[in-house]
């Protein structure tokens, strides 16, 4: 088959998969601590709106504006996640309903839209965008050139992030404690580890990642603003974390796979395939359902399953 099609698919897959990967990594960390945060979609949208707004408003060179915009997006995501953490961890609220609240609050009829109208964000592209780099000048190489050497800085950062998260989880003491907290908080607590602290920090970090993932939409992918532009990516990221069995490496593979599926419609249409666009657009969602069904049949044994204490409240027996 034609190289070009494959390369185009992979490049598009990486592009669309990157926000899924980043948001997914954040949620992976959150869920590893035993907290289920369903509000990713809300945090991503608010992050996207925040980033776009800040990028239009901040002066200075492009890299500076973009950096500040990304930081603002991460901060907004972190703030929302902090509220979530307080309500769920300290007030013991039901995590599912609270996550929904977060999604509605930030969603396309909520705060992100509010910010957009306040900041007069439109479909017109902003003054700064994240552009693809030309690493070592090698972007012209056949096949590997466009894929490995012609990505933007966020993509490279996400690759580093996958490695860092994996190292964190599996080779550091803190990562070990985290895994214990998510599996058996009672055991972790009995060994002197603060369950509450780990849950709070990892939920907030998860929120920051979600905000950054949202920023990628408005600063790189689209790159502008339209209401609800993430189109459910936050929810897909949740499915991806399950599909990846809570492991960073599999998450990356899954994210890019979904990225390819998402971009399939555009790619094929560009090549003249005439099927209704909605069919292609529906593919990622249908795939998520299929993937979830498959994983739940495999997950019946607890070997591969979720962090055992996911979404369960923990409190040390009073004495």
């Amino acid at each position, binding site marked *: 088959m034609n190289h070009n099609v494959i390369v185009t698919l992979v490049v598009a897959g990486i592009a669309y998969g990157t926000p899924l990967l980043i948001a997914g990594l954040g949620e992976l960390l959150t869920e590893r601590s035993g907290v289920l945060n369903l509000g990713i979609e809300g945090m991503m949208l608010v992050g996207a709106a925040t980033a776009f707004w800040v990028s239009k408003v901040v002066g200075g060179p492009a890299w500076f504006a973009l950096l500040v915009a990304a930081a603002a997006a991460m901060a907004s995501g972190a703030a929302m996640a902090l509220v979530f953490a307080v309500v769920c961890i300290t007030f013991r609220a039901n995590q599912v309903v609270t996550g929904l609240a977060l999604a509605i609050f930030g969603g396309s009829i909520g705060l992100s839209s509010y910010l957009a109208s306040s900041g007069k964000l439109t479909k017109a592209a902003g003054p700064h965008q994240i552009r693809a780099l030309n690493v070592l000048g090698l972007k012209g190489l056949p096949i590997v050139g466009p894929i490995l050497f012609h990505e933007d800085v966020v993509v490279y950062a996400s690759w580093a992030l996958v490695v860092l998260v994996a190292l964190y989880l599996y080779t*550091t*003491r803190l990562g070990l*404690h985290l*895994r*214990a907290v998510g599996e*058996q908080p009672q055991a*972790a607590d009995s060994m002197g580890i603060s369950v509450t602290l780990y849950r709070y920090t990892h939920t907030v970090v998860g929120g920051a990642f979600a905000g950054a993932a949202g920023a990628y939409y408005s600063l790189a992918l689209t790159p502008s603003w339209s209401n609800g532009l993430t189109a459910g990516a936050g929810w897909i990221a949740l499915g991806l974390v399950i599909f990846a069995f809570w492991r960073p490496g599999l998450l990356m593979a899954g994210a890019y796979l979904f990225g390819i599926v998402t971009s399939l419609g555009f790619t094929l249409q560009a090549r003249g395939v005439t099927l209704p666009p909605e069919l292609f657009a529906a593919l990622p969602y249908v795939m998520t359902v299929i993937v979830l069904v498959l994983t739940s049949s495999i997950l019946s044994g607890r070997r591969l399953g979720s962090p055992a204490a996911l979404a369960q409240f923990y409190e040390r027996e009073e004495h």
Partner: protein
Amino acid sequence: MPAIAARGITRRFPGVVANDRVSFEVLPGEVHALLGENGSGKTTLCKILTGLYRPDEGEVHIDGRRVHFTSPRDAFDAGVFMVQQHFSLVDRLTVAENVVLGWSPHRTFRCRAREIEAEVAATSERFNMRVDPSARVWQLSVGERQRVEILKALYRGARILILDEPTTVLTPQECEHLFASLRDMTASGASVVFISHKLREVTAVCDRVTVLRRGRTVGAVDIAAAGADPRALARLMVGHEVSLATKDPLVVGADAPVALDVRSLGVSNDFGRLRIKDVSFSIRRGEVLGVAGVAGNGQRELAEAITGLRSHTAGQVLVGERVLRNGSPGDAIAAGVAYVPEDRMGTGLVPSLKVTDNVALKDFRSPELSRGPFVSPKKVLARTRDLLDRFDVSGRPDSTVRQLSGGNAQKVLLAREMSSNPRVLVVAALTRGLDVSAMESARALLLEAAGRGVAVLLISEDLDEVLDLSDRVAVVYDGRIMGIVGAHGADRDGIGLMMAGIEVAA
């Protein structure tokens, strides 16, 4: 100088004094047994010694110094560790990861598998507690998991190790291995407190024994000096108590038809471990068969298998002539098996629902309480009022079960089960947590059911209760029936020995 000493420890909970001026000391290099039945206060005492509870009165001394523990962390720092019956292990992590969790001599940031596995291997070599440090805990047998728990303590330099009923979950070979390791540990100067109800093991591995009963120390015995007389220990443990006023159990004729027949039953627990091994017995109409034994010897699995809440892996359960379908609570209910479960407030009753709803819990489909697809509130209310009246329950039909006292809730449960005209009634934990008058009512109700011809299987940790209410008593130990004896004029000492795992010559 004792390694650890408790002096005059008193600890109260609402309605009960768990420890009443208990004193107890352990010498360095000693394996000291803490012996007693359920309710004797041994677990509470150890939780105080390890910082989980604070005593109301009394002192704890370590190496002669007085200590105040406010959390388990303080106890860790003082070198006191407890290995509980329910392990605090993270299944999905490796042995090494579990052992080093939360603490390291180096306080490093990095935690590479190879390094920690080497460290843990070194510790396990030193104390002859062999486990593969790279294995994941879910892969391990229960005995190996226990070794991991003990390794946690040894890795942190424990000087006083408390083991709570360590052998309930071990095979005989694993027991021997454990005893050998304990001797190695004490050879290095550490002390071990060995909580148990199993006399043979106590006499085999311990140097001295302190016996608790109903929250008090009743004796401290030096095994070597006194010679190992299990009967004397059994008597100390079980005692001669004054029983509650009860009726004599009925005497049942040998030609009464068999209502419940259990044949070669084998039942596994949730982890696949066989908890009931080849158990057979039968109960006639109107007979009460008591099942005596310390908790954790398979009683729960037995009750759940008979009532269909758990599948059995071998054997059959028959009610009359009918073989019950494996693992089907509905079939058991249809066959006339009533069940008063241990978990009163989560399984037997729904605390958030009203008394009326709870009364209709199993029966709501029957024509007596329903009409077509509708449940008739009038009929349910009538039955509820009738039950509350007949069984002397104080409470309103429309209050939620959570609002009732423990005793009244239990009465509601009993009332419902007994009034469903069952053929077989399985009762676990009849009077646990009830005050005296509630206890009397519950016992009377049970006897009345037997009087009406119901075959009763009474599972209880309270030997007195079993002896008072049963016609025959089966003693269960480690999933097997050690023997079935008549309740009248039973030899308490003999039963005590069976409960503790010692075969008694017929």
